[in-house]
């Protein structure tokens, strides 16, 4: 089957959604359909997709999700975060399982399917439809999602917890959420995107998140991906920042058969800064890919990136971190680091930190390491009476903890630490000790 046939097959699957909603939205969706028809799904000949082959994904059939009752699964998978909670079952908003609480003045949190008109000025403004075929597909046929709209000076003290749960269905479903965050001048909020699923769930999540930060706005974004070993997950996070704004991203990637996360940040005015933290942990034959791009479009902007990977069995990791410093962006700082720990001979990482600098007065650094556990550290622990398996586990967890310890929400920190410990190779499983 040719790529165009795959594209046609996918387009016909999502077509029922394209004509839904108000006129401006159907026009937008129709434009994205044309974009997707032209672009198709990405292939290995594109540099950005060189190490991630979606050919097998493209061959699979997916149907559209239907409303199902999954209260038990939702409760089981919940992180138990205090605050606002929006639950999406197979990508569809579930009001009975959600808690929107009392919102402070100037804050709007709206499920998207029923409030599309409120998103008219936001939808598609930060994420270009042509970013990839998947982005176009999402714009053409997103099913639900959320709009978090913060007025000037609005401060949301409690985090917004977006819980996405996939159920096991006879036919695998295509889940396409759209998440929109618009922060006014000096507005502040924390948003948690959490993806998990039933063990037998085999769905495909195609997620697009758009974040727009006005002057002085502060957004902390958590992306926790713990989907089942049969699920596919492709997501892109697009961020646009104005003067003195700060965006912090914690991207934890543990689940999925094939998971790809793109992050694109535009630092558009002086004083804008971004922190990108990431951790990926692969087992079995998992394929985990993280691509980040930071564009320094203005002087005096800062970016800091720290990604860590742990790969076991035959899993494969891909990291590509790119920072572009444009001609007028003097006095910027861009720092990037990617460290990888390979726990097996068959595990593999393809890592590529990239700096592209067109200005001449900048501070930039980048680096990448790949290796095994330090034998002298192992010896030091063993000489203190700790057996080898435990020593290996402790050192591996300590490596991951350099990222996990920057998670500021205690419930999220503890559960992610436990999840990471629980996914370490069985011979040095630390579950229950942390």
């Amino acid at each position, binding site marked *: 089957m040719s790529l165009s046939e795959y594209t046609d097959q996918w387009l016909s699957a999502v077509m029922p959604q394209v004509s839904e909603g108000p006129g401006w939205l159907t026009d937008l969706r129709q434009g994205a359909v044309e974009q997707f028809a032209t672009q198709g799904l990405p292939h*290995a000949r594109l540099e950005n997709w*060189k190490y991630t*082959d979606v050919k*097998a994904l493209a061959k699979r059939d997916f149907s559209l999700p239907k409303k199902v009752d999954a209260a038990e699964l939702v409760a089981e998978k919940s992180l138990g975060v205090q605050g606002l909670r929006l639950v999406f079952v197979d990508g569809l908003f579930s009001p009975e399982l959600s808690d929107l609480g009392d919102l402070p003045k100037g804050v709007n949190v709206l499920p998207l399917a029923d409030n599309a008109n409120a998103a008219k000025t936001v939808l598609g403004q930060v994420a270009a439809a042509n970013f990839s075929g998947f982005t176009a597909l999402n714009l053409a046929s997103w099913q639900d999602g959320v709009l978090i709209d913060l007025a000037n000076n609005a401060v949301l003290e409690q985090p917004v917890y977006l819980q996405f749960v996939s159920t096991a269905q006879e036919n695998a479903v295509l889940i396409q959420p759209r998440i929109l965050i618009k922060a006014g001048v000096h507005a502040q909020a924390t948003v948690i995107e959490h993806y998990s699923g039933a063990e037998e769930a085999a769905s495909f999540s195609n997620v697009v998140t758009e974040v727009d930060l006005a002057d002085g706005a502060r957004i902390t974004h958590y992306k926790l991906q713990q989907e089942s070993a049969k699920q596919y997950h492709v997501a892109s996070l697009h961020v646009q920042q104005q003067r003195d704004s700060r965006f912090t991203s914690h991207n934890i990637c543990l689940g999925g058969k*094939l998971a790809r996360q793109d992050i694109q940040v535009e630092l558009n005015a002086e004083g804008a800064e971004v922190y990108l933290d990431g951790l990926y942990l692969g087992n079995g*034959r998992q394929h985990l890919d993280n691509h980040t791009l930071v564009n320094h479009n203005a002087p005096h902007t800062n970016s800091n990136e720290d990604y860590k990977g742990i790969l076991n069995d035959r899993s494969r990791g891909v990291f590509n971190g790119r920072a572009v410093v444009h001609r007028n962006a003097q006095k910027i700082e861009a720092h990037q680091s990617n460290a990888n720990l390979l726990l097996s001979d068959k595990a593999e990482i393809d890592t590529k930190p990239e700096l592209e600098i067109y200005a001449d007065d900048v501070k930039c650094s980048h680096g990448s390491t790949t290796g095994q556990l330090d034998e002298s550290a192992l010896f030091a622990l063993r000489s203190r009476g700790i057996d080898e398996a435990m020593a290996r586990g402790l050192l591996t967890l300590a490596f991951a903890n350099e990222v996990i310890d920057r998670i500021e929400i205690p419930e999220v920190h503890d559960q992610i630490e436990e999840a990471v410990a629980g996914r370490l190779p069985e011979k040095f499983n630390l579950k229950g000790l942390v």
Partner: protein
Amino acid sequence: MAWIKVDAAAAIADGEYQLVTTEDDVELLVANVDGEFHAIENLCTHDNGSLEGGCIEDGEIVCPRHGARFCLRSGEVTAPPAYEDVDVYPVRIVDGVVEVADEPED
């Protein structure tokens, strides 16, 4: 370990191959070499591309892009620009049908 049906043994002529995908999304190339069937991962370790379109010479598949060669029996790389071996998968014939395992040989 599960077995995946490929095709009737008679349908894969000597020097030819067919592709099959496992439940883990690994694409395998199942080839007939002098009447014996062998399966390797359909992956050139040089550029991560497919070996499909390559011809079989002396029990080796030749990558159609840059000419790297892999032994179909052992998965061993025998010519640059690739330097890493590929995985080999067990093959059996049941009632005249070629079947391939969904897990590689250790």
